[in-house]
């Protein structure tokens, strides 16, 4: 089976009309007509992840995020960049290929990134969650205790919290990656991957600081992009195994980048 044939199978099974105009969900590197020896799913095509995929004999990488450090994977300003050359040559030399699935994952029902992120932070009932955020109710606890549960569940070293650790919370609103939801009157805690800290569409950090100053029990948990969407790529691998049987499919995590 070739990379292109793998993609055709995904398109047939994805359950939503394929948007040919998505600039994200395309081949980024390598020869789509090469034979696939194994598939690695990952949240981000980091150089480190590519090396581990190659080490495991997997030559097709299916990544949720970009390869060339910008959302559009625009390479026109990178042709003379030594890191670009190194990464590109590594992929080509090893007959690897990279294909991105982002927009269609967020259109899928369920959206695996949301389902798995909810599971990883210990919020129950999100098995059929979609991209549009909704509130999940957890047994009432404090923001500090909930954050500790998130740390255990995700294994993250570097996620950041805003709000009073003693605030009593039970209503959780979660979005994946950069789609950190806007805090609402109904929600106690917003969980996301990342968000521009100020001067964005909606600045949750300042909002939660001010709500806290007013004595309202509100919290924000920024998991980091990798920690937020990574678990969904394990679910994607499991899903792909239901219609691709002859090729090994493995989830190869990208490391949380922060120390």
């Amino acid at each position, binding site marked *: 089976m070739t990379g292109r044939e793998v993609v055709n199978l995904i398109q047939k099974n994805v359950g939503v009309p394929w948007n040919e105009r998505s600039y994200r969900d395309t081949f980024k590197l390598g020869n789509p007509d090469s034979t696939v020896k194994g598939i690695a799913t990952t949240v*981000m095509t*980091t*150089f480190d992840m590519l090396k581990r995929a190659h080490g495991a004999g997997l030559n097709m990488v299916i990544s949720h*995020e*970009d390869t060339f*450090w910008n*959302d559009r994977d625009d390479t026109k*300003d*990178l042709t003379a*960049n*030594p*890191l670009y050359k*190194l*990464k590109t040559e590594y992929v080509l030399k090893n007959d690897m290929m990279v294909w991105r699935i982002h927009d269609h994952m*967020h259109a899928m029902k369920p959206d695996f990134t949301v389902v798995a992120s909810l599971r990883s932070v210990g919020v129950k009932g999100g098995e059929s969650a979609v*991209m*549009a955020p909704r509130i999940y109710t957890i047994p009432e606890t404090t923001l*500090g205790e909930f*954050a*500790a549960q*998130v740390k255990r569940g995700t294994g993250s070293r570097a*996620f*950041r*919290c*805003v709000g009073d650790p003693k605030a009593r919370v039970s209503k959780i609103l979660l*979005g994946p*990656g*950069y*789609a950190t*939801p*806007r805090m*609402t*009157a109904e929600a106690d805690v917003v969980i996301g991957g*990342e968000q*521009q*800290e*100020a*001067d*964005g*569409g*909606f*600045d*949750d*950090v*300042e*909002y*939660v*600081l*001010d*709500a806290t*100053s*007013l004595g*309202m029990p509100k919290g924000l948990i*920024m998991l*980091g*992009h990798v920690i937020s969407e990574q678990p969904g790529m394990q679910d994607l691998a499991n899903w792909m195994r239901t219609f691709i049987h002859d090729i090994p499919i493995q989830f190869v995590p990208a*490391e949380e*980048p*922060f*120390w």
Partner: protein
Amino acid sequence: MLSHVAKISRRRFALLAGTAGVVPLPAAGAEPLTAEAAVRRIQNELGGDWPAAGPDGFKAGDPTTVVKGIVTTAMASLDVLKQAVRANANLVITYEPTFYGRADGRAPAVPAGGRGPGGFGADDPVVKAKREFIEKNGLAIFRLRDHWQARKENDMVSGLAGALGWSNRRVKSDDAFYDIPAASAEETVTLIRSKLGLRGGLRAVGDKNATVRRVLLHPGSMTPATMWQRYSEVDMIIAGEVREWENTHYAADIFTAGEKRVLVTIGRVVSEEPGMRACAEWLKTVLKEVPSTWIGAGDPYWRPTT
């Protein structure tokens, strides 16, 4: 002072002219300084165009308020406003929005793809409470971002360098490189945390053991293009914030490629605080008749310990 005089009203000019050669004091009979007059003085001093659609401008309060004192801040959070009131200041100059987004309480909610409506509406309880606090305490809030960072002295960079103790380490006056005393990346990060009083907001990517000598300071947000151009020129970038799937990803790959560099993000607002502290110092030279002080919004982030 002539440049101000040329642009103020004829009446005010007459008042000033009558005291030529005398240090202007808020003497009996002198026209009180309103928030809009203070802002006009700032605008004249900084120059440039001030389009109504730009981010800089009054965001809340009455511009005809008589100014008792000025507070500058990177972000006019409610805690900062409370401290301003306690300090008897009523004109707040903020670098970032007051009402939780670019629209800054002005525009109607704008849908943002897949993320629910943008901004926070006028009926939102936090927006309401903040507006009530501003009104009750007679505050006026003015956003000063574009024109402050466009100032040729760019105190956003030199202010941050000063807060880190590196003022005399600048390599060239027209660039943001600093050659600092050599130390490991880990030691440098510890120094940054302590100098800026950080809690959980600092995150570092790259080689902990890299020897750091040359640093690039970049308050605010850093674009991928800037990162690609400049990262290999320095041992460490200290930025406010970046997008993780872009710049952080790049720094992680540079680490895998074996280069000994570190990307440190300290938080957007934290990175902008020293520049607004410098703004308060500058205001003391422009608006001598009222006190100007800086109030820090602080590092908003914490991390669970268990």
